[in-house]
């Protein structure tokens, strides 16, 4: 069997997926295709295709998109809300098998307030929190957001990003630029 026939057949059969990583609302499996909202709501692809691309989640590098000014989301509704930003990295997983985690407060406080995590999820003291990958995978701790809304837990080395002294370096990040026409993992 000539290989090109197999490749052509695979491409043909998978053609619907090649249209892009974002489903149309009417085909996304959760919107009712007969809902009058379908032609009025913004399509994900129309908004997200203009932002810095990623290979997982919403296929958008949300932090980079914010820092580049591609988006400018409001930080408060009420004028008296104090907007708290904090720039300090915390090193985590100092003794585990994986590379260490450099947790950046800065990127997190761009989106979140201190009280979103402290102290009901994490005590505000380095070394005071016993973190568990199983808990995270189960939607606790970091997993309250990562794996649900922020980048998913398939992206191990985005968090495990710092080699231990004498340890193996973290795997280099995968390229984030998605070539035109490529089919990123859904």
């Amino acid at each position, binding site marked *: 069997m000539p290989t090109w026939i197999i490749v052509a057949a695979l491409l043909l059969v*998978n053609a619907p997926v090649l249209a892009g990583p974002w489903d149309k609302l009417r085909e996304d499996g959760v919107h009712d295709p007969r809902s009058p909202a379908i032609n009025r709501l913004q399509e994900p692809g129309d908004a997200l295709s203009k932002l810095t691309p990623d290979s997982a989640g919403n296929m958008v590098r949300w932090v980079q998109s914010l820092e580049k000014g591609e988006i400018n989301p409001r930080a408060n509704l009420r004028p008296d809300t104090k907007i708290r930003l904090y720039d300090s990295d915390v090193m985590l997983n100092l003794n585990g098998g994986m590379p260490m985690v450099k947790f950046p407060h800065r990127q997190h406080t761009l989106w979140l307030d201190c009280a979103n995590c402290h102290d009901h999820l994490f005590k505000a003291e380095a070394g005071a929190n016993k973190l568990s990958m199983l808990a995270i995978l189960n939607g606790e701790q970091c997993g309250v*957001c990562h794996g649900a809304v922020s980048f998913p837990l398939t992206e191990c080395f985005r968090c495990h990003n710092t080699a231990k002294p004498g340890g193996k370096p973290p795997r280099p990040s995968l390229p984030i630029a998605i070539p035109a026409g490529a089919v990123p993992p859904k």
Partner: protein
Amino acid sequence: MSQVRRILQVCLLLIPALVAGIPPAAAEYADVVLNRRAEKEGMRPVIFPHWFHRIRFRCKVCHQELGFKMRVGSNDVRMSDIVEGKFCGACHNGDVAWAPDQCDLCHSAKRGLPTGIYGGHETLGPGRW
């Protein structure tokens, strides 16, 4: 005979492609379906798209100022709250965003979908979400 075998070969090779080629009913990552009461009250369930909202608002606006807890199903929001300007109603008031009389724009999900977070990635936690 070899012709038949070749045809069978093609069919076998196409099975995984067919399965993979069906667009998954997966929503956009972090879409939330809300159906605590909607369908019992005769409305379609609500879809809350995180992607749309985070282009316009940082997480802290809803999860700090408006008091939405970060766990699907843990926010008991009634239409009366929204009309009074609480939760969604802080913006969905006809001023910042469409008013609550535009029922169908939020109540746009397929009937029968349970409350939950959709569009998850492969490593979605073992059942918690």
